[in-house]
């Protein structure tokens, strides 16, 4: 029960709860990095996914790019970004965004493309404009899948944002990187536990968002 002991020791040490290296501070930093990366990835992935899904064009090219992006190692990309740009937030955001865009893009494309064509045909036939068809007919029905794409992207960002600590930024990765360096395994396990907690919280947020945003007619409940 070594691990549980580590966890217990880490969280009961009051020194870990205060200051610039305290849990609340690191947790908040981690949340900020994650939200920023998710927002940027969504700003790229959602419009492209919605548009290609609606028109049905460019699907093959999309899958190719997305698969290529998935094959890129995040850590390698981070090192490359730092070498090219130097230290800072930007080189951290690059691998996180590259990681998160494919699931958002591909699921959104698939979600919109797989919407039953008959309501779309009906909407077009009654004189609805294309933008309205996308946002008022296709998206509400595609929403559960779109959200699941965002959710898997968010989970991957949360667990990967720990690499920010390698380039002297904060976040929960600090505990893991510093703990490994100092051979303080209590800290390593504590940091990893916090990352897991944040991932679970992310799941909860998306579950709640799904309950609120998806119509009961689509949820069928």
């Amino acid at each position: 029960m070594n691990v549980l002991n580590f966890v217990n020791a880490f969280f009961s040490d009051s020194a870990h709860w205060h200051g610039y290296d305290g849990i609340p501070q690191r947790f908040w930093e981690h949340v900020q990095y994650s939200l920023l990366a998710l927002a940027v990835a969504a700003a790229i992935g959602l419009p492209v996914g919605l548009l290609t899904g609606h028109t049905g064009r460019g699907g093959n090219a999309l899958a190719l790019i997305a698969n290529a992006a998935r094959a890129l190692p995040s850590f390698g990309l981070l090192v490359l970004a730092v070498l090219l740009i130097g230290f800072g937030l930007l080189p951290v955001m690059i691998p996180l965004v590259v990681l998160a865009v494919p699931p958002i893009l591909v699921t959104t494309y698939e979600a919109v493309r797989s919407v039953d064509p008959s309501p779309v045909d009906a909407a077009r036939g009654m004189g609805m404009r294309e933008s309205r068809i996308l946002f008022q007919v296709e998206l509400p029905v595609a929403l559960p899948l779109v959200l699941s794409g965002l959710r898997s992207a968010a989970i991957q960002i949360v667990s990967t944002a720990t690499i920010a600590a390698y380039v002297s930024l904060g976040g929960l990765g600090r505990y893991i990187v510093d703990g490994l360096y100092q051979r303080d395994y209590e800290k390593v396990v504590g940091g990893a536990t916090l990352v897991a907690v944040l991932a679970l919280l992310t799941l909860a947020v998306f579950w709640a968002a799904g309950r609120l945003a998806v119509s009961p007619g689509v949820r069928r409940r």
Partner: protein
Amino acid sequence: MIRIDSVTKRYPDGTVAVDRLSLEIPDRSITVLVGPSGCGKTTTLRMINRMVEPTEGSILLDGEDIQRRPVTALRRSMGYVIQNAGLFQHRTIVDNIATVPRMLGWGKQRARERAAELMQRVGLDTSLARRYPYQLSGGQQQRVGVARALAADPPVLLMDEPFSAVDPVVRKGLQDELLRIQEELGKTIVFVTHDIDEAIKLGTMVAVLREGGRLAQYAPPAELLSAPADGFVEDFLGADRGIRRLSFFDSAALELTTDSVVPADATADRIAAAPDPYLLVTDADGRPLGWAERDGQAGGDLAAERLLPYGRPFVPGADSLRVALDCAVLSPTGWAVAVDDGGRVTGVVSQQTIGEAIRAAHTERAAHTERSAHTGSRTHPRKDEAGVAE
């Protein structure tokens, strides 16, 4: 009036979906486009609201080329009903129906009131208003589809195989409902189907299309049945078009006899006076009880005898010759029983008499057609719904 003027639709790969088709679709009536799959009937329909653009030719709506109208405005002036209703599953029934009024800028309250009104019109209980489409049966969903198309009161209704995906019983209900709604609203309806029976039942005019999108015949249903233009139309109509045509003849002119209709307490003398070997026995109110053999009856209480079932009666005037003939064929004695609205016997008629009436009707109709062809007027005989509903 919608005028389709030698319209051709050719796809880039060379397939011709519609080939120089010309049709005049009269106002306030149901025009049915019917034909086998690949005959271009759906393509033709979709060209009317510019879901498909013709390669050649033009379509005029009240004399104006539809190409000159903004596509959204054109579509909003035409109701559109498709096969699986195509409801928006994230919206409640009332909001589905209110879609077009909302697009036209109606207030939410007014649009919902209109939607509730339409639910009643298409025979939907208003308690379903807050439900979602998945909570409705296929037939109910299709009614919502019709209500949604009617919501902004468009003069034209385009219906693309709207009743094909429901079972026959529900389909018949929806067809009857459409005829009833049409009687009330008088829309210009263009209706696509692959089912010739549906076409004959609903159509004021029926356009039969053949593969490659060419018009085989354009005529009122009765004319289609009596004078198919060629072998293709004849095959498409099926083997029993003679019988089906009887749906267009009224049974009011049938000569009924009451000589063999006797009350249950008839005397022996009355029975002996009957000219036919079978007697139709009625109760004290004049309702039919069944058939009895004339010979060997003592009289007094015929209801105590073992009576043969009288089958299904018909109502002269309301039912067609087809129904009357069907009743006679089903009857064990070969005689059909005629009743009034209250179910009281007004007489009986033999298969032979019905046969004579059919021949007489044919002669009269032929003379009539000749006359109207001569004067150039086209008549659309009122259809007997109950007759075609088989």
